[in-house]
């Protein structure tokens, strides 16, 4: 097996990156896991709800429990985890340029690079959107679930996908009031079981509704909403004012692609998964030799799919570096794809399945 191997460098210690690093380390490959934050786990630790899926997907387990388990595994395996370490460049020949604690920079020659840099929440511009009190749903979620601080007392949530609805529920659990969840489309986006939980707590949903403006002197004091027509244009005379001090924007995420672009990865535009993302094949290999892309970076889905994609890349990278035999690689890749496919089923999953199939079809060109 491989000797004197340059390490696999995994960028991002969220669920995808952690799973990739764990696979590599278990195969005996040298691996370095870097994260720009002071704590690993990505967005996993603020997920306090029970996950869906099946037992093999850790269904019924709360997100932060999965995070703790992954961290414990990585510690037990002795993975070289470098926190407060920002990767600012990927040079041809896979030199990973890292800056540690904003004070020391170094280049690590990598055998391969796995980009697991996640995604960013989208903004929504409307008059007053910069006022204190307007924030992303994820920001509110971080505040209540990680820092245990309420962002405000009465919240309007804009966007009814799972993120907005789950954060609405978690704000209720934290002791805030949710005045309403509004959705521009004619129907709600999130799972029915998520919306039902919040609805029976008395939170109203308004479809075909947009936010016109946020009002207030030094912070949000009111939100003005209105109905929209089929073209998403506000309908005059339907304005309503809500007394809120917080407005959470939950209108989707976009893959974080800085490093993928720097590395030269070819993108593909897939609106269902968040916009532009790097092309990849069934092993999560990008168009650049030795660079893999996994998790939300490769298309916005869920923590459970991110973990499986991380495993795919970790398994293949271990093989590519000479630490895993081909038969074992193929068998474990197939098993992982089985679990991934079952997560991409049903009324919500099938759109993601079709979108990923388009990426894979084009991504095969470099297989």
């Amino acid at each position, binding site marked *: 097996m491989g000797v004197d191997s340059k390490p696999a460098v995994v960028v991002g210690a969220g669920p995808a990156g952690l799973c990739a690093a764990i696979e590599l380390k278990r195969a005996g490959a040298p691996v370095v896991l870097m994260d720009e934050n002071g704590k690993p786990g990505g967005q996993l630790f603020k997920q306090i709800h029970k996950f869906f899926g099946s037992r093999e997907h850790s269904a019924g387990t709360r997100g932060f429990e999965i995070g703790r388990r992954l961290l414990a595994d990585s510690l037990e395996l002795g993975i070289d985890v470098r926190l407060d370490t920002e990767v600012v460049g990927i040079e041809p020949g896979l030199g990973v340029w890292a800056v540690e604690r904003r004070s020391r920079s170094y280049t690590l020659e990598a055998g391969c690079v796995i980009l697991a840099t996640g995604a*960013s929440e989208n903004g929504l511009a409307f008059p007053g959107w*910069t006022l204190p009190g307007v924030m992303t749903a994820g920001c509110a979620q971080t505040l209540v679930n990680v820092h245990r601080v309420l962002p405000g007392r009465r919240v309007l949530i804009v966007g009814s996908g799972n993120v907005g609805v789950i954060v609405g529920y978690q704000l209720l659990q934290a002791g805030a009031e949710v005045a309403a969840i509004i959705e521009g489309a004619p129907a709600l986006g999130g799972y029915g079981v998520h919306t039902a939980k919040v609805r029976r707590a008395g939170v109203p949903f308004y479809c075909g509704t947009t936010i016109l403006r946020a009002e207030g*002197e030094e912070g949000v004091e009111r939100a003005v909403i209105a109905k929209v027509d089929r073209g998403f244009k506000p309908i005059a005379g339907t304005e309503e004012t809500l007394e809120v001090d*917080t407005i959470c924007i939950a209108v989707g995420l976009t893959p974080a692609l800085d490093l993928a672009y720097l590395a030269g990865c070819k993108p593909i535009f897939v609106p269902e998964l968040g916009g532009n993302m790097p092309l990849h094949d069934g092993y999560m290999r990008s168009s650049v030799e030795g660079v893999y892309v996994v998790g939300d970076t490769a298309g916005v889905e869920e923590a459970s799919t991110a973990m499986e994609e991380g495993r795919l890349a970790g398994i293949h990278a271990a093989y590519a570096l000479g630490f895993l035999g081909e038969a074992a690689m193929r068998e474990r890749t197939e098993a992982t794809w089985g679990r991934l496919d079952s997560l991409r089923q049903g009324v919500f999953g099938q759109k993601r399945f079709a979108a990923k199939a388009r990426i894979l079809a084009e991504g095969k060109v470099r297989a």
Partner: protein
Amino acid sequence: MSGEASSGGRRIASHPILGEPEAAREVTIYLDGAAIAAKEGEPIMSALVAAGVGVFRHTKRGSPRRMFCGIGRCTDCVMTVDGIPGVRTCVTPVREGMLVERQEGAGSWKGGEGHGRR
């Protein structure tokens, strides 16, 4: 402090899923000279929101700002920390005696030594 009434920030005592808060050492930070109780290890943003601080800074045109993404990607939450302007308060942990100041626009360097994470 402006915006206090509407900021509504406060700490969550018992939580149905998270349970009781973990014991944490209290530290004192200073916002524009006023002492604020903070928990060791938490980001500046969290201590300020818990203390009911409604405004973190103003832009050059006088627009009040606080926080937006909360995870270090958007720079809405920047303040001047220990003399260094433009520090992201959502990813910078508090330290005993830390001096946090509201800045106008990009703020200005006050000779700080770089403890804060930008």
